């Protein structure tokens, strides 16, 4: 694959006796949006936590922009941003305070952090709520701030772990447009979601995980072709084809 920006090779991670991730290998090209799909407990979040240097793999290696996360984690962190599945914000502080603080932690100086915070708030349609306390925000606004924080420091690689869960269509659309804008600017994105139409719309390629392993990986069209007529088959059909219809914990 040309200009691979992230490579994950044979990743393994167990918690006590449970194998959460079991031999995951894939790569993401620069400027690509790569979707990681899977039912609950498939190992998506554990994979993202290993890729984003929070967890150390039991086995395998991750390389981001030429830096191994085992040996050069600090360098890798300097070029990545993470938008976690659960809101990770200081609720007692204002939106601006949150953005500026994480901007400073991402290496921006005071003025750059403030300027970028204002830019990101505008991007998310929250410029007029800059001084508002996060605790007073709606779920959709919090999600947008969560994404805005992950953009502080101009990361080259962005991990988006279910960024649109539980929000209204307006906020969701705002996030879609933001992600598409980032893609147009050449940002590399790893995206996880349970909404198949979202992955179909945004992702260049998609990997489906189950039981800690990648069981299918291709473009959305390519995956659809594997099981039928791409004009009639949806990505959800593909997903259920590979992961089955039994309920998960």
């Amino acid at each position, binding site marked *: 694959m040309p200009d691979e920006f992230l490579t994950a090779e044979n990743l393994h991670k167990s918690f006590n006796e449970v194998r959460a991730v079991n031999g995951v290998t894939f790569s993401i090209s620069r400027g690509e949006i790569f979707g990681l799909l899977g039912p609950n407990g498939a190992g998506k979040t554990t994979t993202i936590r290993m890729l984003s240097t929070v967890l150390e793999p039991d086995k395998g290696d991750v390389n981001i922009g030429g830096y191994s996360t085992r040996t050069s984690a600090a360098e890798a962190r300097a070029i990545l941003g993470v938008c976690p599945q659960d809101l990770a914000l200081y609720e007692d*502080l204002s939106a601006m305070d949150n953005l500026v603080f994480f901007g400073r932690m991402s290496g921006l100086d005071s003025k750059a952090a403030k300027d970028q915070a204002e830019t990101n708030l505008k991007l998310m349609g929250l410029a007029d709520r800059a001084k508002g306390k996060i605790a007073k925000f709606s779920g959709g606004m919090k999600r947008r701030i969560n994404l805005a924080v992950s953009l502080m420091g101009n990361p080259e690689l962005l991990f988006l772990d279910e960024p649109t869960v539980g929000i209204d269509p307006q906020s969701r659309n705002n996030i879609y447009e933001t992600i598409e804008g980032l893609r147009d600017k050449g940002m590399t994105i790893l995206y996880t979601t349970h909404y198949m139409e979202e992955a179909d719309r945004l992702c260049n390629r998609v990997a489906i995980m189950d039981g800690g392993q990648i069981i299918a990986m291709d473009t959305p069209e390519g995956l659809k072709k594997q099981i039928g007529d791409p004009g009639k088959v949806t990505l959800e059909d593909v997903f259920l084809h590979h992961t089955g219809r039994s309920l998960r914990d």
Partner: protein
Amino acid sequence: MIKSLHVALLETKIFLKDKAGLAFSLLLPIAIFSLMYGAFGGQTLFYGTAHVVNLDDSGAHAQSLIDQLNEVENLDIVMLTEAEAQRKLDRSDILIAFYIPEDFSADIESGQSTQLSIRQRGNGGSEGQITASIFRSIVEGMNQQLQVHAKVATSVAASGASQQQINTVVENYTATEQQTVSVNTLEQGESPDPVNEFLPGIVTMFILFGISMNARALYEERKRGTLERLITTRLSITQMFAGKFIAYVLRGFIQTLILFSLAYAVFGMFTPASFFQALVLSLMFSGAAGSFGLIIGSISKSEGQAIWMAVFFTMTMVMLGGTFFPIQEGTVLHYISKLSLNTYINDALKSIVVHNNSLASVWPEILIMAGVIVAGLLLSRYLFRVIAT
């Protein structure tokens, strides 16, 4: 370093936004200090109450005994009926009562021996024991006077002296009698100031209470995901812990500053030098407590765990540190107390505040706290990494 300061600033901002936490950490120490001072401070003399049941209402000797009790400084006399005394003893409202029997004066007048009674619950309590001792001493004096009176009366009986003359002789004799053995009390300096005695213990106790807040704050940050988010930035774990440590130390220092300033302004405690030196010591102790907060916060898997581990640690340290009761040298507890950080900080603070020594004289204590800070920070960082991964 700048990133650590930003983390510290953020922690402080969050702390200042939590009004309840702020009130707890800053106002409660003042309230507790005032209460303890009100309860134990300001007065080092004995003050007590003697509960007396006088069944010899019209007896002159009973009245004389009560009058003598009334003359004792700092002793209040409360007269009770027999039934009242019984009920109060039954309910432990009082622990000791003194009974004057019905025929007390009549028996004395007729030359018969008579017996006063003391009823008490257990050993009567420390106040009761002191009051009983005063009571016995007065009875002893009264007894001696009566014996002298009887001997004089017997020896002058043949001379036909009147009762009035005998009384006068006995009074003159007992008033001018030189005691063969007496006790002279010499004053050596002023009474220890209770503020000086209490303050170090209270200050260190409240700095330790901060551990609970620190541990909980670290756990909450992990729970809401911001800690994990911070790990993915350019902030290293060492910088993050350094920032939190600075914030915790600052919080403890502000508490201390308020209490010390209060003690200086209200009780005239400290010289400028001892004020500064006591602050330096408290800063060191805040650091040691802050590193313990980080350890507990790093290993806690729930808010309850964080709080209860901190409470257990705090109370153990406070008890062993001699804040609530003195620990005698040479006892097993004395050696165990060496495991408590409070032992060192309390000793060092007393040395500075009470004895006006300098920081140089408490260098072993300072060294111990510095060691605890370094070891605590390294251990908490290690444990955090282990738990996180």
